[in-house]
Structure formats: C-alpha cells, structure tokens
C-alpha cells in the first residue's frame, strides 16, 4: 500500500517539485508577513478611555524602581476612582530593560503599535533620552517620573515633555552648597561614566567651587561596572577632605559596603546624591549609618500629606514607599492637573502645557511647581541615615530650579 502511494506521488512530483517548494516557501513568507502586519492591529484604544503607556524597567538592576513608580501612579489613580481629569484611564506596559539600545524600538511599540495618548517613563537616563526624542517628534505627551538626564529639560525640551522627578544637576548642586558650607576644602568625586553620573558631578562641582571648594580629582568607571577596589585605593592615596559620589541601585549598595570595608568611612566622610541611600538601606546595613545625602524626599518628612501617602502606600502594596513611588504618584497628579484643565481632551496640547506651567502639585515631598523647562522647582533636603531611615536634618536648598541650559522654550 505504501509502495503504491509512494509510486503515485513519485509520478506526480517530478513536474512540480520546484513549484511546490516555491509555493511552500512563498506561503511561509506571506504568512509571517501577514502576522507581522496583523500585529499593529492587535492593540487598539478602547472608546473614551485615555491610554497611558508605561515604559519602565520591570527587569534588571532598576526593576524595583520601575515597580515603585508604577505603584505610586496606580495609588493616585485609585484614589481618584480610576479617573484622571474626569476620564477613565487604561494602562499599557512595556519593559525597557534599562537598555538604551532597545529604547527607540520600545517607545515606537507604545506610540505606533499601541497608540497611547500619554507616555510615562523612565528610570534610566539614556532610555529617557530616546523616549524624549521620539515624543518630541511625534508630539505625544511624555511625563518622566525619574530619569534625571539634564537634556530632557534642556536641549531636548518640548511643550509636550514634563518631568515629575528632578534633573541630575539638582541634587548634586544642593550637595555642593552643603559641602562648601561644611568647610571641606578638597574633594574627590566618583561615579559611573554615564549621563546621570556626569551631570550629577557637574551640578555638584558648580555649587561647590562657587562656595570656595576645590574638586581635586574626578574618578569614574564604566556603567554598570562595580569593581571599585582600584579606585578606592586611589581615593585613599589622594587623601581628600571628603568624597562626593553618585551611584544608584545595586551599584550604590556595593559602593557603600566596599567603602566601609576599605576602612575609608572612618577617615574620609562620604557624601552623595540621595540615590546612594534610597531603597538600598536594607542591603547596606550598618555600612550606611551616618551618611549624608541630598534629595527632594526623605523618610521622615512627617508632614500630614506625606504621612497620609505613606500609610496608603504601605497598606496597598505592603511595602514602604520611596522617592520613586512619590515621583510616580506625582506624575499621576500632574497628568490629572493637565487633564482637568483641558476637560480630558488630550489633543489640546497647548492648554495642557499652559495648565501645568502654573499648577501647584501637592506632593508628599512638599508642594512644588514646574519651571519654564517643565522640571520641578522644589526643596532639596539634607538627610542622614539613622537606623534604617533617611532622616531630614535641614533643607539644603529651598525652591531649587534647574537652569534648563540649552532649552529653547
């Protein structure tokens, strides 16, 4: 039976071998292209709902930060009954993996495939730059809930780009003022060699040298390298009065521990931008005790607004909130403020921007407004690590505004 069938096939085949093969391949090609073509059709916005796209790190070094930002946003959304500015909100997510190389692709997914109305993201400055560029070109409203790249509210600034967090320059500048006032004359800086690190040190240097100090050495290592040993030896060799640093996430944990292990903590005081000790205290343990940092938030602000926020966050997510959660929360507040002014019609970009320019955001960090370049004008606190908390010592810089250099708005 098999032989007969085989023979039958064999007789038919010779004439059509090539054709069948071509047809099969062409069909496979067509199929795959059809699938690719169908994919844009998979995501369409539902009627009436405002589509908000999160582009955050849900995996990798900054995953905890990405989740905190989204949690903060959702908290405010829930407090408003699922509506912002009177409109129901639909959330879409893309994981940016903190990878600038994939950033443009990921933003395009949200803007071109999912057709979001508003973009919220991200943590990594490099990724945020890609987002800002695409948002600037496409006109989609973008609210940055963390990435402090100065360029986002500098040369890349645009009427549709806003930030609810800070610019890298700000906490550095605030700390520069503090360290100059404390009387440290010679300082070494150390950070990762990327936009966030460079800009933080630059802000620090500006205020510190204006206050009479001198930065004698600027050390750096490639991101996200955490082999600090050689550079710690360098610091010991240079014998400065103090060290200013910028590290965040896993790198911050390791640096603080290595700094203490090298015996430097006792002899050369370590200062940093707040990210050194935000969200990292659990892992750093006793090695972080006593460290001074500057940030626009702290764990012990004890204002009514902050207490209410912290309570609600802890109840909903069973976690303590941090600065990232606050920034996500305020991004939602900013969106709500703008949407109320335009009665939910996100296409009224000019009115949206105008409303945010004069808005006073009632944030758990304190009230803040937006500067001309859409970056928060806010107080920066000097904090010290006591127990497992960043306690406020004083206000390092009141109403500090990022100069928005290069912004032509």
């Amino acid at each position: 039976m098999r032989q007969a069938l085989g023979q039958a096939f064999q007789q038919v085949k010779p004439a059509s071998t090539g054709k069948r093969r071509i047809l099969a391949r062409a069909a496979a090609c067509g199929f795959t292209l059809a699938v690719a073509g169908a994919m844009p059709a998979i995501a369409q916005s539902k009627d009436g709902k405002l589509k908000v796209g999160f582009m955050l790190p849900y995996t990798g070094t900054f995953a905890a930060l990405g989740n905190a930002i989204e949690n903060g946003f959702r908290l405010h959304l829930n407090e408003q009954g699922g509506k912002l500015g009177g409109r129901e909100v639909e959330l879409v997510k893309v994981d940016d993996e903190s990878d600038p190389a994939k950033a443009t692709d990921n933003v395009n997914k949200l803007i071109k495939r999912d057709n979001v109305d508003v973009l919220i993201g991200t943590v990594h400055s490099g990724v945020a730059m890609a987002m800002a560029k695409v948002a600037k070109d496409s006109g989609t409203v973008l609210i940055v809930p963390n990435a402090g790249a100065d360029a986002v509210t500098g040369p890349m600034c645009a009427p549709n780009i806003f930030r609810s967090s800070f610019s890298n320059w700000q906490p550095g500048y605030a700390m520069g003022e503090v360290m100059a006032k404390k009387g440290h004359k010679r300082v070494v800086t150390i950070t990762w060699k990327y936009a966030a690190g460079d800009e933080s040190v630059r802000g620090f240097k500006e205020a510190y040298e204006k206050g009479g100090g001198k930065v004698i050495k600027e050390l750096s290592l490639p991101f996200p390298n955490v082999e600090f040993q050689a550079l710690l030896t360098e610091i010991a060799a240079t014998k400065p009065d103090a060290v200013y640093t910028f590290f965040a996430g896993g790198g911050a944990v390791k640096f603080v521990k290595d700094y203490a292990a090298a015996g430097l903590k006792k002899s050369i005081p370590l200062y940093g931008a707040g990210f050194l000790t935000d969200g990292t205290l659990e892992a750093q343990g006793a090695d972080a005790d006593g460290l001074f940092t500057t940030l626009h938030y702290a764990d012990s602000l004890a204002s009514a607004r902050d207490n209410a926020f912290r309570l609600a966050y802890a109840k909903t997510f069973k976690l303590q909130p941090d600065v990232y959660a606050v920034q996500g929360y305020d991004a939602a507040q900013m969106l709500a403020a703008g949407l109320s002014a335009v009665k939910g019609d996100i296409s009224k970009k000019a009115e949206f921007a105008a409303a945010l320019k004069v808005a006073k955001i009632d944030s758990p960090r304190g009230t803040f407004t937006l500067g001309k370049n859409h970056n928060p004008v806010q107080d920066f606190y000097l904090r010290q690590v006591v127990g497992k908390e960043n306690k406020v010592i004083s206000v390092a810089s009141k109403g500090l505004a990022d100069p928005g250099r290069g912004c032509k708005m």
Partner: protein
Amino acid sequence: MDFSIFLIQCLNALQYGLLLFLVASGLTLIFGIMGVINLAHGSFYMIGAYMAFGLAPIVQSSFGGGFFATLLVGLFLAIVLGYFLEWAFYSYLYEREHLQQVLMTYGLILVFEELRSLIIGDDVHGVSAPDFLSGSIALGDTMTYPVYRLFMSALCISLAIGMYLVFTRTRLGMMIRAGSSNREMVQSLGVDIQFLYRVVFAAGVAIAAFAGMVAAPVSSVYPNMGSQVLIICFVVVVIGGIGSIRGALLAALLIGFVDTFGKVLLPQASGVLVYVLMALILLWKPQGLFKAG
C-alpha cells in the same frame, strides 16, 4: 603613586587575576580537551553566585551550616549539574562545527538567564562573607584591605596548585592530557573517553560555579554578571593558549594587572587595553602563549 599604594594596587590586580583564572581554567579545559566553544560558561559562574545567595538560608535552616557549608553544598550541586549537562546537551556538540556550538551555547545562555529570572528574580543581592573573614587589615594610615579578598586569593592559589597536582601527578590527569592530544589513541587503549569527558566537563562547571560562589560577597549577585565575565574569560583562554592551564594563569594575571592599573592610570582607555593586549599577543604568537597541556 607611592610605593605602598602601588603594593595595594598589586594586591587588587592579583586578586582579580586569580579569580579570572579560576573561571577561565574551566573554559580552557573544556575548550582544549573537548574542542567545544562554550559561550554559556559565564552562566556557570552566575549560577554559582546565585547558589551562594539562594542556598545560604536553606543550609542555615536545615543544619545550621554557615558559609563553608554552603560552599560545599554548592560545589556538590555544581558537579551534579555539570555531569547532567554534559550527558543531556554538551555531548551532542562534540562532532558539530564551531559555529553550531556557538549558536547552541548562545541559546543556552538565554535559557539560563531566564530560568534564573523565573526562579530567583531580577533583583541585585548581596551575600555576606563569614564573620571571621569580614574584617580588614590595616595597610598604611588610611587604607585597610578586606581580609576576605586575601582569603579569595589564597583559595584561588590553592586551587591552582591542586589542579596542577592533579594534572601532573595523577592517572586522571595523565588521561586528560593524553585525551587532549590524541583522542582516538586513548580510546583504543581502553580508556572510556565518554566518562573522561563527562568528568572534565563537570569539573569545569564546578570550578566556574565555585569561583562565582567565592566571589559573591565581593562582586554582589546580579543579572548579567555571567556575560560580563564570559568575554574576559575568552580573552584569557585565547591569550594563554587553548587548553593550557599554565597559559590561563599567566594570561589571567596579565589581564588583572593591565585592567587594574589601566583603570587608575588611563581610566578612559581601561576598557580597550585588555583587547589591545590580546590583539598584540595574538599577532606575535597566533596560537597564544602556551601550547595545550
């Protein structure tokens, strides 16, 4: 820089180089003896580090063991894993071309990374060194050197000596060396080459995982730690000569020094220096510094 700082930087370089040697020795063994390019070798290092993190609480609660108990348990598990992987996957790669090996082991990297993500997650973790090793020794007036790093270097040196002894003084070592020069001859002499390969592979995996476990308190435990160490390991193996343990040691130390002093003296070029070194050595000695064995 003054002399004491120079000495400390030498210590740093030595420690980094020795750790690299440990990981790379497994790679050069597998490469040299079985002829398999294993891109997933960095993943074994990562698996070791994550085992140090994940097993510590389990070992602690089951029989009150501390760091060393975790190391032993982890080592045992790594040997089992290596044995299993060779049987299930790598033994099929021996006859294949290098390109196919590259591809399949690259796929394996992706699989390991995602399994890690599924089982443990993506957070960065710290691992504590045992208490009696957590102190620091004073070197000079401001600088102290962590005792644990000295311990690491000592451990790596002992392992290197151990490997040397096994290779040169034991029957197993002799069979391994013979198998790398002439597989068929060894087989026809009655040695079970399959079993030999399995042992070598398991050893390679175990050594890399052990290096990860030992390094965990110092390097912390994070995603992508495998990829970072992988490329440098390949450089070590290529500079040292494929299959040569002696070469791997020399190359690893060389790279340790170039990298450490490069970071301090020429920070902008530090990343490039290692590759410049490799290119120069290969152009001088296209087969690496030493022959296999």
